[in-house]
């Protein structure tokens, strides 16, 4: 499958990446090659194979509904680039 420049631009927007025109072109080629390689899998007959959606072979890792954390907002906020009281402060969000 050929990847288009437009698709790369779209994915870049979704991932909040600012790409130069050169990078867009470069990644279109590189990502396209990776996708083409993956397409080889499509040649296999998988009609009898269960869909693989998780690498783990087990299931159901649960925790009980117990409050076990000791609140420590100071530690949580320690690495915040900006804060106000115990809030995180971010550039104004416009809806």
């Amino acid at each position, binding site marked *: 499958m050929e990847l288009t420049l437009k698709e790369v631009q779209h994915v870049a927007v979704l991932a909040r990446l600012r790409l130069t025109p050169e990078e867009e072109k470069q990644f279109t080629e590189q990502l396209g090659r990776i996708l083409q390689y993956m397409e080889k899998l499509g040649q296999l007959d998988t009609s009898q194979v269960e869909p693989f*959606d998780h690498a783990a072979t087990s299931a159901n890792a649960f925790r009980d509904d117990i409050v076990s954390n000791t609140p420590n907002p100071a530690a949580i906020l320690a690495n915040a680039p900006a804060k106000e009281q115990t809030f995180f402060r971010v550039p104004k969000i416009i809806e």
Partner: protein
Amino acid sequence: MKYESVIGLEVHAQLLTQSKIFCGCSTQFGQAPNYNTCAVCIGFPGVLPVLNKKVVEFAIRAGLATHCEITRSSRLARKNYFYPDLPKGYQISQYELPICANGYVDIDLDGTSKRVRLTRIHMEEDAGKNIHDGHGDSSLVDFNRAGVPLLEIVSEPDMRNPAEAGIYLRTLRAILQYLDICDGNMEQGSFRCDANISIRPQGTDALGTKVEIKNLNSFKAIEKALEYETARQMDTLSEGGKLIQETRLWDENKEQTRAMRSKESAHDYRYFPDPDLLPVVIDEKWIDEIHTSLPELPGTRRSRFLSQYALPLYDAELLTSRRDIADYFETAVTIYPNAKAISNWIMGELFRILKERKLDQQLYIKTWPVRAEYLAELVQLIDQDKISGKIAKMVFDALVDAERSPQTIVKEKGLEQVSDVARIETSIDQILAAYPKQIADYRGGNEKIFGFLVGQVMKSMQGKANPQKVNEILKAKLSCTIST
């Protein structure tokens, strides 16, 4: 052309767990900003979320109560988007394999039942909260709510007008409250709703262009927004305009919807199974256990109240709208089986006190201002002619917060009804002697005077006289006077 609206609803119900969905932080509402947070719900690198078993249990409860199929092997997925209230850059939710699917809720439209199908119910984490106003060029973020467990309950577009949507939401909310999994508080945001609405010519089947409405914070807002949106869409079409698929925001103050600035590619969430979380596999045994623990649900209970207690539909609906009230009613009726009288006292006097004390805002009332046993006894005292209805209201007020039975109160305050003929006669004789002019009027044909005289007798006996006896004796005496 006549149009009908086609409405589907998406409900987010906050679950009543102690801890968050993937970490051991408290879910308590109203804490200081970022107090209930940790490395997991804040999305620090390298942390591992672990699913709260209670969330799965609650989801199955909701699924069974709404006739869903329970997915035997379900997955958690990442929904990717950027927003400051979403610390990880993705929300852990479910996509292809939701825990519950293909259910329904039967709603009651003035005595006829209508089935609203449910597409799916899935588990997910809530986001944090942004504060936009009053901080200059900044917004503030509080993550106490981030990671609080939610059920998203998605209906099929089966509702045909705003009123039906309102009834569906109330019905769904009552079910969740009966199940004890969500407090249903819309103001605090623990029961939220987004609506999808389109219109189409009546009698056609194709779906029109749908609009999603957000920011609906009360039942009133939902019904109003849907009415507004129906009218707006009809106007647009009748003026030859075209509708576009968009998300609109309900403006409570202006009472209208407005288009949200469309986020580009807003719906490209690139879901994929979360590699940090194992599949959720549910066996028959677990489902059976939960099934047997389900309470009688509002619809079933309402039908039973109609047949078992012969209550009017209005009473049955109101009493079963909350599990605690229905329980209260049944406790009282078990003690003294005058169902209608007990229902009247609950809907009248008890509701008045619940409202005054704001107890009706509690999810489950544990301590009642008047004990159910006492209410039953009160009704019994009235039925046995031991107290009059008027006195009963006084006794009821005295029962509030009281540790004494109605019988004790009646005795202590000397409120027992007087049916003793001699005592009533004495009082009547005094009144007759005191009002010769009125009696002359009555003789002259003014029958209204009779009521006045009864009132005077009751007053002179502090309301304790048996009104029936007073009526009988007074009538007899007056006719005697006339004949002599």
